[in-house]
């Protein structure tokens, strides 16, 4: 069972709820955590952010055997009514109970810019925050995927020789790699899909009135100010994709907004990302005929009535969230024919020009989600499932004929296109070796090589066209 401890200072309304322990001056004296019953596995504490010393609280949590990264902290400062407090606690309990545990690699000292040299190795205790780690079993870097490397705003990730290496010192733990990874291989234990979804469900379920979800950076104000917007803390609002912004609407929330760490914007310089995700979320709503003001950057208007909840099973957050969210919103408005061009959302579709594509299949090999797939039984066939494309653009980067326009990608979605499912986008014959019968290469590729070599190399071309690589030297 999760223990809940709240500080009684500042007269927050509704503190005396069932299952809650209220402690005078908790913000100033974390030693009260020592009175928790043995075997406490989950803890939520309610503090006033300007009063409490986070480092001291982290020490006290460890002293009783709890990992601070898994302890829910509710900022009581901006709680204005009992209903908001009950919802904030329900959300925090759900998120805390979904904490998967952290490895030593997933605990990180607060970024260097915020810690003085003296603070590191002298008296002050360093603050520990959640950091990403890469699950090498799931990671697609060995096929060439480097989506997280490209997205990282501080170059903390590098790709070399089929694996991604991570520089913890450089990392600012913004979480962008977590939402960028197309296969969910990058995990920050403090911001997992399961925990975020559990918190949002907890907030919506406990509030009892139309609710807006307010994603906010860890440095920003946390909870409700009475407007009906309830806080969900993320490492940086720059990590939010359109899917993350829209997902609460499919869970019963009426609106969702994003609040960066400062009034003027994001301290880490991710304002463009936030703006782009918000613009895409609005485009998606618009394409589906829904009110675009349900998402925004700190919405001041009162919360509108929620959308009717769509029938759903399974989790929404996680890899493929964008497709699931659009599918659910489309089912609310009962449409099968919406489409929109987007800016940065990981949704795309690929077009292959059969006149210039040599059917080499490099695009299918690098595709991390298997949206592009190739088979070579008989002919060589490349097929595409647009529902799986995350617009990572790696097929464009690797295509040897991209300058001739062999492949193009557009960011956006088209429900009619999705409804068609997987379809063939390129087929070519596969000549066989005259000596051993093995496939040589796609015919278009052989013709392309011949055209590049020219007629003066016809002897070489003849050999290439009739013998496989292994038999050429014999």
């Amino acid at each position, binding site marked *: 069972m999760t223990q809940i401890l709240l500080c009684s200072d500042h007269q927050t309304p509704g503190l005396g709820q069932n299952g809650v322990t209220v402690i005078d001056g908790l913000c100033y004296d974390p030693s009260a955590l020592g009175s928790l019953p043995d075997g406490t596995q989950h803890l939520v504490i309610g503090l006033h952010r300007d009063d409490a010393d986070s480092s001291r609280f982290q020490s006290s949590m460890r002293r009783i055997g709890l990992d601070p990264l898994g302890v829910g902290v509710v900022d009581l400062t901006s709680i204005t009514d009992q209903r908001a407090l009950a919802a904030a606690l329900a959300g925090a309990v759900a998120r805390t109970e979904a904490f998967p545990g952290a490895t*030593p*690699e997933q*605990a990180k000292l607060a970024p260097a810019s915020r810690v003085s040299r003296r603070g590191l190795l*002298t008296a002050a*205790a360093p603050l520990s925050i959640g950091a990403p780690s890469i699950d090498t079993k799931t990671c697609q870097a060995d096929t060439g995927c480097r989506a997280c490397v490209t997205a990282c705003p501080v170059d903390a990730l590098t790709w070399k020789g089929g694996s991604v290496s991570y520089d913890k010192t450089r990392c600012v733990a913004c979480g962008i790699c977590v939402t960028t990874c197309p296969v969910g291989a990058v995990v920050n234990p403090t911001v997992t899909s399961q925990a975020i979804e559990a918190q949002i469900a907890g907030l919506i379920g406990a509030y009892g009135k139309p609710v807006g979800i307010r994603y906010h950076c860890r440095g920003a104000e946390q909870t409700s100010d009475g407007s009906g917007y309830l806080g969900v803390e993320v490492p940086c609002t720059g990590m939010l994709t359109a899917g993350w912004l829209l997902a609460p609407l499919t869970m019963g929330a009426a609106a969702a907004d994003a609040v960066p760490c400062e009034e003027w914007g994001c301290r880490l310089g991710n304002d463009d990302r936030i703006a782009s995700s918000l613009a895409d979320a609005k485009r998606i709503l618009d394409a589906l005929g829904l009110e675009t003001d349900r998402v925004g950057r700190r919405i001041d208007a009162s919360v509108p009535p929620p959308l009717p909840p769509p029938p759903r099973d399974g989790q929404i957050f996680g890899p493929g969230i964008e497709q699931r969210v659009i599918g659910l919103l489309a089912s609310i408005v009962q449409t099968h024919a919406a489409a929109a061009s987007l800016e940065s959302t990981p949704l795309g579709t690929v077009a292959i020009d059969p006149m210039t594509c040599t059917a080499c299949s490099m695009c299918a090999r690098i595709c991390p989600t298997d949206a592009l797939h190739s088979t070579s039984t008989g002919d060589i066939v490349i097929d595409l499932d647009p529902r799986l494309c995350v617009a990572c653009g790696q097929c464009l980067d690797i295509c040897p004929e991209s300058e001739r326009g062999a492949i193009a990608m557009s960011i956006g979605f088209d429900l009619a296109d999705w409804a068609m499912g997987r379809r063939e986008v390129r087929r070519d014959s596969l000549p066989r070796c005259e000596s051993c019968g093995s496939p040589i290469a796609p015919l278009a590729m052989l013709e392309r090589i011949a055209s590049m070599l020219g007629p003066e190399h016809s002897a070489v071309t003849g050999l290439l066209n009739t013998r496989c690589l292994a038999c050429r030297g014999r």
Partner: protein
Amino acid sequence: MSAGDPARLRQGVYRLIGAGFASPRADHSDVIVASIPVLADLGLFDYSYSLYVVDYARTLAATDPRELSPAYMAMFEVGVGGATCPPTESAWLASPHSGDVAVILSELQRSYLRYGLRPSDSRSETIDHVTVEFDVMASLCGMEAEQRAAGRLVTRTVGHQIEFLDNHLGRWLPLFTEAVLRHNSHPTYTALASAAHALVTHDRELLAMLDQLEPSSR
């Protein structure tokens, strides 16, 4: 807390883990378990690795001391074709049938001399044994604590710590601890391997951050 205490704490934790990897003595558990309150006073719980260190101490306290020696021998000393998890740097970084072992040992010897350290003649372990390498880090942290307490510059000593983790202990310890965790043959050594890994992972980050703020004289 005085200015040298975080370094004193690190010295104590390296010493504790190093002792854990030594061949178990009769008073093994008592000494290690008794050191936890002392480390707590030095600020142990300010650091994320404390969870793993305390878990190790608790597991050790709950272990029948008669179990430890056979478990230690089976995992770190004997076995068909060698120990299951050899606790030496050369076993993990040297390629078999090459002169790498000698190279590693002579590099270590040179490093120890440069740091002003000399392994005690009474020790039975080789100079690349995990317990010796943890003791080396403990000694370097101890030097740092003394220098801080005396108000002297610590840049050189911190540089030695970074160098030692980068070139020696930090390079092979993850391979070694992963093997111990994989074999999972005794809960005490599984908990010890986790604690060792957590400490070194944390310290590499801490020292790298420090190095960024003020480059050391390596």
